[in-house]
């Protein structure tokens, strides 16, 4: 079974630049998560969807971050104007009822 796929694996930006991360969840998983994992910290939930609907985006910095899942399958997380504090690994994960949460390998973002 294919796992959660994320791209790109790495990104290096200058402050002020924009970047998008893409996630392909496990087929049939209705719930999709985006986590931010700063260096030396645990993953912190940014936003999660059930199908195409946003269930919780309370921790998503709405002025610069956005996330969509238009067809309830793939998802894109975008940072409009990156800051050095956004340097982290961004993890996508998915699940469905009665399954565990499966994570992708993440996108490691460095903002210089």
């Amino acid at each position, binding site marked *: 079974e294919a796992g959660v796929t994320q791209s790109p694996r790495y990104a290096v930006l200058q402050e002020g630049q924009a970047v998008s991360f893409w996630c392909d969840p496990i087929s049939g998983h209705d719930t999709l998560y985006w986590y931010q994992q700063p260096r030396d910290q645990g*993953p912190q939930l940014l936003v999660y969807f059930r199908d195409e609907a946003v269930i*919780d985006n309370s921790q998503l910095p709405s002025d610069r971050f956005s996330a969509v899942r238009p067809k309830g399958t793939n998802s894109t997380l975008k940072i409009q104007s990156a800051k050095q504090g956004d340097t982290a690994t961004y*993890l996508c994960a998915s699940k469905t009822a009665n399954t*565990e949460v499966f994570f992708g390998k993440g996108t490691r973002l460095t903002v210089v």
Partner: protein
Amino acid sequence: GDSVTQTEGLVTLTEGLPVMLNCTYQSTYSPFLFWYVQHLNEAPKLLLKSFTDNKRPEHQGFHATLHKSSSSFHLQKSSAQLSDSALYYCASATSSGQKLVFGQGTILKVYL
């Protein structure tokens, strides 16, 4: 809100010695507790999950016991192996299991 605390950032051990990684939690409800393991450049993967019937979960020689009286879910293994070297996260989730809250993580390094 809910929180998970892992007090050790780094644990170093000689192969063959017992392992114990600490995890305590705070929650308004009775959450499920999880241990995830993340090897270098890999996705976090579920290692153990607490049971509702107080059975002790075990996997790959690791086990953990949920103690509601002390709000703890410490990870243990009787004999460490070199291949156990990784980053370990404790996490909690409400009964719906929709949102995982992670601790800061503990790096386990096992030496010969």
